[in-house]
């Protein structure tokens, strides 16, 4: 809920912030030309947007230098990414809309949906996901009205922690749950806020899992992975 007048951003600036978020997660810092390439715009128009974001203190930016997110910027961007994911999964899993369509609509609506509505959608999403019977009932009901699109298999819970990510999936760490020595150890190993983590595989007996972080490989027990909250793509 952005009630502070100075903090609201235009849809386009939010897109910039979201792009920077992903580029920084992967590379450590973002260069203007990477951002331009990702957004498919001209490098010259990037500069203006970056300046605006820097004025609002969402990013650290000086001309010809790489861009990193400020604390506020990171949180703002994480929230946009979060809304994006909620919308996409809500459309795909609750409404049974085609994945590609869900993604496309989510990209548009992420700017306008607002945190309050998104939070309720997320709650409903969780409610439906937890109830197989209701999910089938809902799918059947939608199918009656609209045809087979709604009958698509409904995926299990949206990725919230590293333990929920499947092999090959990536996420950016938003926070690590406080659990004594474990969270300190994880922080020491570089599993901190803003780091990109990718699940590479699972042990033969289903636990532990193999992840990639900061260009090296690590194994984690599922119980430890469940303490790491992420936003996934």
């Amino acid at each position, binding site marked *: 809920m952005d009630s502070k007048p100075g903090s609201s951003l235009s849809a386009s600036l939010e897109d910039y912030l979201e792009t920077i978020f992903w580029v920084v997660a992967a590379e450590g810092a973002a260069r203007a030309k990477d951002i331009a390439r990702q957004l498919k715009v001209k490098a010259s128009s990037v500069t203006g947007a970056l300046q605006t974001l820097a004025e609002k203190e969402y990013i650290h930016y000086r001309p010809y230098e790489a861009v990193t997110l400020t604390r506020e910027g990171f949180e703002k961007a994480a929230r946009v990414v979060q809304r994006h994911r909620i919308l996409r999964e809500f459309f795909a899993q609750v409404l049974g809309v085609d994945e590609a369509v869900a993604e496309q609509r989510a990209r548009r609506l992420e700017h306008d949906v607002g945190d309050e509505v998104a939070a309720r959608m997320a709650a409903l999403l969780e409610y439906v996901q937890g109830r197989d019977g209701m999910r089938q009932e809902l799918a059947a009901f939608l199918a009656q009205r609209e045809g087979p699109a709604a009958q698509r298999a409904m995926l299990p819970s949206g990725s919230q922690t590293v333990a929920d990510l499947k092999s090959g999936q990536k996420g950016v760490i938003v926070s690590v749950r406080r659990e004594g020595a474990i969270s300190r150890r994880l922080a020491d190993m570089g599993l901190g806020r*803003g780091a990109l983590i990718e699940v590479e595989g699972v042990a*033969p007996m289903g636990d532990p899992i193999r992840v990639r972080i900061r260009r090296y490989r*690590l*194994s984690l027990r599922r119980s430890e992975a469940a303490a790491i909250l992420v936003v996934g793509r």
Partner: protein
Amino acid sequence: MKRIRVALAGNPNSGKSSVFNMLTGAHQHVGNYPGVTVEKKEGVCTYDGYQIEIIDLPGTYSLTAYSTEELIARDYVLDETPDVVVDVVDASNLERNLYLATQLIEMNVPLVLAFNMSDLAKRRGIEFDLEQLSRLLEARIVPTVGNKAQGREPLLEAIVATVRQAETPRAHRLNYGDEIEEELAKIEAVLVEQNVEWVPRSGLRWVAVKLLEQDDAVTAKAVHPEIRDAVARSVEHLRGIFGDEPEIVMADRRYGFISGACQETIASSVERRHDTSDTIDAVVTNRVLGLPIFLLLMYMVFWLTFTLGEYPMMALEWFFEWAGATVAGFWPAGSDSWVKSLLIDGILGGVGGVVVFLPNILLLFLAIAILEDSGYMARAAFVMDRIMHKIGLHGKSFIPMLIGFGCSVPAIMATRILENRRSRFTTIMVIPLMSCGARLTIYALIIPAFFPHQWRGPVMWLIYLIGIVLAVVCAKVLRLTIFRGETMPFVMELPPYRVPTLKSVLIHMWQRGWLFLKKAGTVILGISIVLWALASFPKPSAEELAELNEQQRHQTILERSIIGRVGHIIEPVIRPLGFDWKVGTALIGATAAKEVFVSQLGIVYAVGSEEGGAEVLRRRLQADYTPLVGFCIMLFCLISAPCVGTVAMTRQETNSWRWATFQFLALTGLAYGITFLVYQIGSLWG
């Protein structure tokens, strides 16, 4: 000659040992840090008129005093104030490796960075602006390739140059951001106000950083209520701002600093997403293939250690037999001189009893060094963790326990691969329950004596199974009682695969072998000689022996000896297990080595060890005991009193007689209890 003391720090898997080997060559010494079981390696070399003494600190990812290793490394740097700290950094994995460097920088130590495996980094297309990075980190940086001995001279040069240069305060410091810096300043001010006298050379700021991180070791020193209050206020304040513990935010900031430094100084020309390690991992940790590959490799380790190890062992046994015969030649045939007996049965037998373990230990550590250096060991732990975690152990515990089926002595030494003390000690305690090869000779005597053909296989299988089940139960019980505590997070690096170098593998093997001879070997020899004396004295008079044949003579000597007498004395105690004094005497003798049980029983029954002797002995046993007693003998030998070698090794690896005594008494007590129940309940059945 002027001395320079250098401490070698670095992440595990950064190739620290290879740099250490490169610097010191053969001039190294392996010991333990005082009071703990963490290995300490020291070495010396000379350069440019300096004698450079190098201490290899334990490999750590951080210096947060989170594990024993980290605390040792940190205390060494703080208390022993080495002239230079060399941080060995894996150049191909810079971001995480520099984390330790940021902490060393914060400690204000004269620092040299060895960018190790720089050839690998180059092959991966990573290019460094070392000059710029060196300016940012304010430390000399030297590219090295430890396992190819490249960069030795420049590294020594940098060490000497760092010593010669007057200590100048650092121009930059790691900035934690305004909110945290403010609190650090407040804490520092309180520290100055209170005029604390325990500030190490790393300075006030470091103390403030550690206090804000709620570091246990530093907090324990800050007893001043003013300081504690200030820290508590700051922590609370920062928690409010960040919604997270300050230490977590600070760790993130350090990584932020590293990302910034890397961004400015590193160019990656090729983005190679999938490397060889990924391909290998896709196979060896595969959900279907992972376990079979692991089991196959374990089979090969076992085969190498024991099947291949049997040849040098046979050669050694043959040599000691020959040596015994040669020594015996100095006395007239049939002489009963106790000096002869001391030399042959006591000393030569004792030395033989030590050296006989050497082939197993060398070959096992050859295999372990290859597994560790290649990077597979971490994958083995990864594959096995699910099962081992259930019984409270680490994935890697599987390897020593498996080796236990061959021999407990190398198996206990192999627990060195476990970093966590609790997991390691638990594993050591239960290893003797894995039925070792020596006990097989006991089963081979007893089972055919008491059990019909079709039952022999199942009985043997049952004995092994009982051992495994007991080991699992005991491990679980130990982890819930004396070795209780938070299980260490598993968070384990899966290092890139590498081809092990011959030199590092051989050095590893040699160090283990030497350590065994020096430490456990002397204990084994000492106890063996004592056991020989107990079995030889007091001697019966010459008249008593005069009319007896050789077997009877041996029998009389043993029966009259202290061991024989104790065997008689404890008979009432072992009666409820179905044992008489003969079994008791053999059991006491078997403390020297499990297989001695068979030869001692032979002596007690006055049966020679020549061809067919075993059959004669079996018939005598059948006459004296029921199959139930036979089973109870095997059960007791399986569980009870670990042999001298095991005791000596447990003493060496736990660094205390207390644990060795505990293991001995606890296992013997367990054996008594279980055998008692089996015999009593079995007798009721009839």
